[in-house]
C-alpha cells in the first residue's frame, strides 16, 4: 500500500506531465526543500538535514578561521539546492569580488554596508522581499557606530531578523567575531564555532587553502538544546575541515 508521500509524488508527476503536455511547464517542477545542507554530513545530521529554512544560525570564530569562505560555500550550496538567489550583506565592506566562486556571482546579491546597523537594516529589507534561499549577514570587524557614537546592537534587531526569516522561509546566517556580545545570542537555531587550522600550500609554493575546525556549540531542535561537538570532512574545497 502506497504511503502518503508516494501518493503525493505520483500526483506531482502526473501534474507535471499534464502541464508539460499542455505547454504550460516552464521547467521540471521541483520541491521547495525545507532544509539547506551544509555539505558536511555529520553537521547535517546534527542539524536535522542542514540549515532549516526560516531559522537564524550563527557562525563565529577567531580571525582567519575561514568564516567567509565557509559562508560563500554555504551560499552556493543553498542557491543550487533551493534554486533561489542568495544574498551577502557585508557589514564590513570586506568581500573580495574576485574570490566569489564564478558559479555564485550571478546568483548573489552583495550589499556593501558601512556599519553593522546598516547591514542589519538591509538584511531586514532583503529577507522581507522574500525569494532568497539564504541571507548571510557578515559582521566580522563591522563598525557598530551610529552617527558618531558606538552603540550596542540590541536584541530587537536580531528578533526582527528571526521574525522576517521565519515569514519568508529564508535561512539567515550571521557571521560574527568570536564571542561577540553583539551577536544574536540565544535567538539562533544553532551556533557554530570555527577555529583556525594550518594553511595548505599547493606544491609548496601557492596558498591553496586552510584547515578549519568547526564545532557546533549550541543546537536547538524543538525544545531540546544540546551542546555537543560535531564533525567535519575533507574535500576539494579551499577550506578543509576536520573533526573538532
Amino acid at each position: 500500500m502506497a504511503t502518503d508521500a508516494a501518493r503525493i509524488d505520483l500526483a506531482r508527476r502526473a501534474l507535471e506531465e499534464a502541464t508539460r503536455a499542455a505547454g504550460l511547464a516552464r521547467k521540471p517542477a521541483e520541491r521547495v526543500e525545507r532544509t539547506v545542507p551544509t555539505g558536511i554530513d555529520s553537521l547535517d545530521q546534527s542539524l536535522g538535514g542542514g540549515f532549516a529554512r526560516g531559522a537564524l544560525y550563527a557562525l563565529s570564530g577567531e580571525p582567519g578561521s575561514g568564516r567567509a569562505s565557509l559562508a560563500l560555500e554555504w551560499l552556493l550550496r543553498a542557491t543550487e539546492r533551493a534554486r533561489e538567489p542568495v544574498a551577502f550583506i557585508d557589514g564590513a565592506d570586506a568581500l573580495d569580488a574576485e574570490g566569489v566562486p564564478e558559479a555564485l556571482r550571478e546568483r548573489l546579491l552583495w550589499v556593501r554596508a558601512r556599519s553593522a546597523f546598516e547591514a542589519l537594516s538591509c538584511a531586514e529589507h532583503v529577507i522581507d522581499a522574500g525569494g532568497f534561499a539564504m541571507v548571510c549577514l557578515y559582521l566580522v570587524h563591522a563598525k557598530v557606530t551610529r552617527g558618531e557614537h558606538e552603540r550596542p546592537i540590541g536584541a530587537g534587531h536580531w528578533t526582527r531578523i528571526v521574525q522576517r526569516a521565519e515569514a519568508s522561509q529564508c535561512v539567515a546566517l550571521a557571521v560574527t567575531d568570536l564571542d561577540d556580545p553583539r551577536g544574536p545570542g540565544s535567538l539562533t537555531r544553532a551556533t557554530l564555532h570555527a577555529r583556525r587550522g594550518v594553511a595548505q600550500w599547493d606544491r609548496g609554493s601557492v596558498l591553496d587553502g586552510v584547515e578549519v575546525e568547526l564545532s557546533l556549540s549550541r543546537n536547538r531542535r524543538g525544545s531540546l538544546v544540546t551542546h555537543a561537538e560535531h564533525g567535519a570532512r575533507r574535500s576539494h574545497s579551499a577550506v578543509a575541515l576536520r573533526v573538532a
Partner: protein
Amino acid sequence: MSDAREPPVRIACATVLDPSWSALVRREPAAAEQCVALVDQDGARGVVLAASPSALRAGVRRGQRAHRARSIAGSLTIRVEDPHARASAREALCDAALSLSPTIELDADRVFLDARGVRGRFETEEGFAAALARACEKVGQPSRVAIARGRLTAAALSCAALDVVVPEGGERAALAALSLAQLGLDPKLVRSLDSLGVHSASALARIEPALLAARLGEHAARAVRLARGEDRTPLIAMARSERFEERCSFEWEIIESEPLLFLCKRLFDNAMARLACRSLSSRHARVSFALREGGAHERAIAVGAPTRDVAVWLRLLRASLDAAPPPDAVVGARVEFDPCAPRAVQLGLFDPPGPAPERWSLALARIEAMVGADRVGMPCAPATHAPGEVRLAPFDPAHAQRAIDRAVPARFALALHVFRPARPARVRYEHGAIQAIVSEYASGRVARCAGPYRRAGQWWSEPFAQDSWDVALEDQTLLRVAYDGRTGEWSLEGRYE
C-alpha cells in the same frame, strides 16, 4: 469602386460634457463635493468657467467675475484652470477611445472613432456607445456619445446632450430638433441665418444649398447639407500616442514629501488608468518636479517587473524622495511612464516563487536609499587590475533565476577579507622574501610566503604598480601583503578568512 462587402461608414463621437470641470475633477476629485468655482486666471478679474453643483446652487454662474462669485457664495473656493491638467485629460480621452477602436481622431475636447464592424463584439451599436461612455468615465472624462454616418453629424448630436445612435438614412430626422448653434456652425453664420429667419436645423434643411451659397458662401451650403444629414466628412486617423504623461501645477509651494506624495498619487492614479485602458503596464517612470526658483528636479524610478500598482510606485517614489529630496519648494509635478506589455505570470506549481519583482524593487529602493545605489548589486570582475577596484552589476531576480538554471561547475576559493582602505605596515624584506611584518592589525615573523604577484597598468591615466604576497605568520594568520612600486609603501591588503 468600393468593395460591396465593405461595411458602411459609421463614426462615433464622444464629447466631454464639461471639459474644464472634468479636467479639474480628474486632478482633484474632492472638488466635486465642495463649493468650488474654476476660473480662467488668478486674481479678482478671473472669469468663472465652471462650478461645482453646490456652487451652482449657491448662485455662482459661468461668465461671472471671480470677485462677484465670491460675494455670492462666501465659502467659495476658487481654482485656476491648469492647462497641463487639461492637456493630460485630452490624452486620457484618446486612450479611452483607443481601448475600443484603433482608428481615432481627437478634435479639441471630443474624439471620433471608426465604429465600423462593432456588432461583432458589442452586438449592437448602442452597446458600443455605452462601452465608450464607460471607458471615458473611467479615465475621468464623462462624455456623451453619438454614432452616425457622418463625422459632423455625430459631433452635432453628441454636443446636443443626446446619447443617440442614428441608423443609416435617419440623420436628417435626428438633426431636425437641433438649433443652429447646436449644429456646431460658425457663430457669424448663425447670426446671418437668424437675420434671414432660419432658427433651426429643420428650417435650414429645407433651403436649397445653391441659393444659400450664392448669398452667404460655400460654407452655408455645407451647413445645409449637414442639416439634411448629407455630411460625408471623413475621419482623419491620428497617430497612436505612446506617451503616458500626467502633469499638474500646484497652487501653493510644497516643501515636505508627504503632501507631495499625496498630490503625486492622483497623477499616478490617472496615468495607471490610462495604461489600463490600453492594456499596457510600465517598468520605468520619470518624475519631474518644477521648483519655485525655476528649473526642474528629475528622478527615475524603476520596478523589477511591469506593474500598474499605484501603491508600489508611490512607495518607490517615497524611498527616492527620502534618499534625495528636491532642493527647493515644489510648484508642479510631471510623471511620465514608458509603456510596455504587462507581465505574463506563469509560475510552476512546485517552483520556488523567487523574489516578487514589485516587493524586490521596493526593498532595493530602500537599500539604495540607505547605502547608495553603487553599493548594491551582483559582484563582477572589474575591468581593470588596479588594486581596490570593485564593480557591481544591477541585481535582477529574473537574471539570477536564469543563472541558477545554468549549470556552472562549482569551484571554491579561499575568501579574502579585504581591508578597505589597505592598512599600512612595516615589512622586513630580505633575500627576495618577506621575513617579518609589523602593523597595527597583525605582527610577527613570517613562516611562509608566496609571491610576488605583480600587476601594473593604466600608465596613460592613473598608473599603478603593485606586488602582492600571500604570507603565513608563525601563528598561522594568513595575510595578503602589498608593495606599491610607485610610492615604496607596504600595506596589508587583506586577511584570508
